[in-house]
């Protein structure tokens, strides 16, 4: 069963006929559209990259940002915590343990947020295609805007992807983050497939979607109900056997 039920190829996502800018539902009034246009203009020119080296490709970032290629010319600068960051760079293969931290960081980042997959490992497994420990397609677990081919793309390629991302933001097309809210159940399904039904993160995505009006048809489904059933604890009273306990080697102590 090579085709995992419900998994959709993000590249096809690209080809969906998204006409110009009406994708953003609430931008109805002219005034909001002007504001939105200006906001997108500023968003494109001020990108904060999360300083999180998930894999081997991270070594390409310093030259991109420092004096030789100097991405600050176009407004890209590194930021330390996910709260302040806009772009999450997944630089190389993603082991299962790293994926948990990647998902946590992604959910702690504030929308609009963009994910760029470096190298072939994030596209289709790369040279670790037959490894039991790494994931093969990044976009099954978190929505990804752009991929860069190559087994570690050079700074020029990274520069090119930043410019491409800026063009997409300017055109209002970099909306993969909406997909996470709209089809959260799909992503959660993939995540739970890997980590088991107990899996959840402190961030409450469904409540966030409700709060900001980003609910979509796929936001809630069988898996989010599984999530609620497992997390019947209210956030106040996290039970002793919090699923991640084993993860943090609690038994070691």
């Amino acid at each position, binding site marked *: 069963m090579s085709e995992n039920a419900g998994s959709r190829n993000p590249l096809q996502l690209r080809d969906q006929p998204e006409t110009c800018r009406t994708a953003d539902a609430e931008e109805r009034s002219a005034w909001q559209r002007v504001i939105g246009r200006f906001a997108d203009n*500023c*968003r494109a*020119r001020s990108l904060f990259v999360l300083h999180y080296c998930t894999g081997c490709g991270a070594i390409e970032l310093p030259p991109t940002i420092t*004096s030789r290629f*100097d991405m*600050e010319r176009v*407004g890209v600068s590194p930021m*330390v915590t996910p709260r*302040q960051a806009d772009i999450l760079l997944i630089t190389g293969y993603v082991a299962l343990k790293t994926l948990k931290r990647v998902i946590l960081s992604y959910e702690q980042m*504030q929308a609009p947020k963009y994910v760029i997959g470096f190298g072939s490992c994030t596209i289709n497994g790369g040279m670790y295609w037959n490894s039991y420990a790494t994931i093969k397609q990044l976009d099954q677990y978190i929505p990804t805007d752009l991929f860069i081919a190559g087994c570690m793309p050079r700074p020029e390629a990274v520069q090119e992807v930043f410019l491409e991302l800026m063009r997409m933001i300017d055109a209002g097309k970099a909306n993969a983050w909406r997909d996470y809210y709209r089809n959260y159940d799909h992503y959660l399904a993939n995540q739970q497939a890997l980590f088991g039904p107990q899996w959840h993160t402190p961030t409450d995505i469904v409540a966030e979607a409700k709060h900001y009006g980003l609910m979509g048809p796929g936001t809630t489904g069988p898996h989010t109900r599984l999530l609620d059933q497992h997390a019947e604890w209210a956030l106040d009273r996290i039970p002793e056997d919090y699923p991640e306990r084993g993860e943090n080697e609690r038994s070691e102590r």
Partner: protein
Amino acid sequence: MTLSLLAELIVMPLIAFVVGLALVLMMRRVRARIERRIGPPLLQPVYDIVKLYAKRTQVSHGIMHDLAIVMLLGGITTSVCFLPVPGLEGLARQGDLLTLVYLMMVPMLGLALGVGSCANPNGSIGISRALTAMLAYDVPFVFVVIGLAVAYGTTSLPEIIAHQQSGGIATWGAAEMPLLAIAGFIAMHAMLGKEPFEIYVAPAEIATGPMAEMSGKYMGALFVMQSFQLYTIGALYVTMFLGGGENWLTFLMKLFAVVFVSVALTNVYGRYKTDKVIRFMWTWPTGIALAGLALVMMH
């Protein structure tokens, strides 16, 4: 008169904001040039702030976190209104230098309360270091302020400026009290919170300290505070030692010169540890300030 005062109360913060943004841009450009880079485009600070304010989802940690940001914005704009600039005297006559020094502490306390309510230890450690640094650099700054007040016999800023402008460059604060000027500069440099006194926003150690849990408009408010802080501290130094602004051109030139020197210094230093900051600030600048004060008390 009240109308013009009301207008002043609106215009002064705006000027402060715009000039502040220019200062931030200059700072980033100087840093880039030192690193042999080109540096950000002209409107980069504006883009950053607008993007942060335009964030779709933002995380708050309770009502105190929001109120603290409001208190921060209120505090910095109020302190600007007490800082006389050429043509606009604002509330300088209602409160004097001591009031201004205290008003500049209100935003620091607001930030501290907000970061505290974020319940993030990185933020708490950052704030504890920020307050320790404040204690460190305020000791020499106190001697500078006292020396100034005793020298001019008054603490009301318009009088100080009038006194300094009475005899051209000869009667500038820096000319009459060089030692106090030097100590004042070092203290002001530390106030900006840049290397070598950047212990409380140490990205490598405590994940940008106070800004660890600030997202969206909270981060935007901190960027605005940074621009206001650069303007206020620069303008205060100019008012105290460089004779304030006869007209806007000379005022801005002096302001950019002061901040340029400070920012240039920043990028050639590493980051001091907390107790090194205290030991440095309590020995060299305090010694120079005490010497200056002794000279002032002599006659």
